[in-house]
């Protein structure tokens, strides 16, 4: 998978976020402050512009620029968290011009580690981690077992979606939603929802390239 695939991923993310902007904001209105959709839409719009300005040559460079741009355009909790995630993933991919599934799995592990290091959320805290942790684990396992790209990415997305759904019944222990205490139960976490969209876009971009 070369830089084009990763650029396609980011482009797909920007498209699906724009499309789901109001849905994400509504999720955030229920247990947060109603800006998650606007935040990510602002961020990924800026990322597209940055990628167009001077298109990075390697997958790692694409993700690093994406992360840096998110950090300097999004704000809120999700900006530093997603920004750090993409930067760590980019760093993990190094300057290879073409990366394989194993390298991608390692990059996703690095992204998750970055988010947890910064935000200190564990699985079950009702955050994006509840999508990224199981999805990354499922993907790494599938790749280790030598499954096909389609199967491994399928496992990634399935785990991501059930992870997002699982946040509905959780009580938030991190982020703004935690202020609600028990009243946070019964709502899907907006960052979990956006993480599922981001991973869904990853599968689409890679499969489309094959």
């Amino acid at each position, binding site marked *: 998978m070369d830089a084009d695939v990763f650029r396609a991923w980011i482009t797909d993310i920007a498209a699906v976020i724009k499309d789901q902007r109001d849905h994400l*904001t509504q999720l955030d*209105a*229920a*247990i*947060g*402050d*109603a*800006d998650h959709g*606007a*935040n990510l839409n*602002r961020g990924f719009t800026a990322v597209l512009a940055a990628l167009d300005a001077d298109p990075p040559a390697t997958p790692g460079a694409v993700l690093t620029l994406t992360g840096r741009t998110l*950090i*300097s*355009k*999004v*704000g*809120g*909790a*999700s*900006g*530093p*968290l997603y920004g750090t995630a993409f930067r760590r993933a980019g760093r993990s991919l190094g300057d290879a011009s073409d990366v394989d599934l194993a390298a991608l799995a390692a990059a996703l592990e690095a992204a998750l580690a970055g988010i947890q290091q*910064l*935000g200190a959320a564990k699985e079950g805290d009702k955050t994006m981690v509840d999508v990224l942790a199981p999805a990354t684990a499922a993907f790494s396992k599938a790749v280790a077992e030598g499954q096909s790209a389609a199967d491994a990415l399928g496992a990634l997305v399935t785990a991501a979606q059930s992870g997002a759904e699982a946040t509905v019944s959780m*009580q938030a*222990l*991190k*982020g*703004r939603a*935690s*202020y*609600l*205490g028990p*009243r946070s139960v019964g709502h899907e976490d907006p960052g979990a929802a956006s993480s599922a969209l981001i991973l869904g876009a990853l599968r689409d971009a890679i499969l489309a390239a094959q």
Partner: protein
Amino acid sequence: MKKLINAPDDVVTDALAGLAAAHPSLRLDAENKVVIRGDAPRAGKVGLVSGGGSGHEPLHGGFVGYGMLDAACAGEVFTSPVPDQMLAATKAVSGDAGVLHIVKNYTGDILNFQMAAELADDEGIEVVSVVVNDDVAVQDSLYTAGRRGVGATVFVEKIAGALAEAGAPLADVAAIAREVNERSRSFGVALTSCTLPAVGKPSFELAESEIELGIGIHGEPGRERTTITTAHNLAGTVLDAIGDDMPLSGDLLVMVNGMGGTPLMELYVLYAEVQRYIEGHGARIARNLVGNYITSLDMQGFSVTVTQLTDDLTRLWDAPVDTPGLRWGR
């Protein structure tokens, strides 16, 4: 949604332009959305930087000026600013005596200010951060992101600003900021929701006689819903919650703050009840603020902040301040 704006995406930029236009003593870094004291940086003076999401006006930009903040970063509505903005503000006010970051305790603010402090450190600027977390409506525990920073932010900015103006070193300014935060507690109540310009409809719905207790300043739902009652009873509920967490004794600094859509007349009705309650509990309101100081867009509602004063704090509170939002002594 009916708002006095040009377009939802321009509201922050346009409001900053208006603030700067109305107050020529302030400088505006429009690109970074940073409001800066006209005479910054002042050599040898500790720089005070705060910031946060917009929609809380006059906080923070309205508290930039003599005796208070040196710069404020404005994020999008209810969204923490980004590290670049905070770095720009930090550089603009650094007079080689270090810079204090006053950060309200929200995950986004904490993370972005933390990254900004690292960037400033790379550039050789000494930064100390003080986190404000005075909202007793949130249990500070393993089960939350910790107490929110609300009304005490105004007091921290005023009192730390006065000490910095007097030429105190960074460590002392940071220490007094922490002291004010530790001696302060707040609790907020919403009578109505608020409407983000970019969203166009209320963040939550309240029935005709419903109110929300224990709200923050971002239209987040609060701790519980109940039925509207008298100002007397509301003052009781709020001050009971504060008093459970910090004894109401001695000389107090009290703010009865409007959330943006509540008329001053009602805030004064409430203040009369707050004073009656506090005096009934053997304490004394030595200083007070009544008005809109840390708001939540067009929300109708209020918050009460109580700070236990010391002679030092009272002296620093009384020191001259000259900002769009707070002014006395000059």
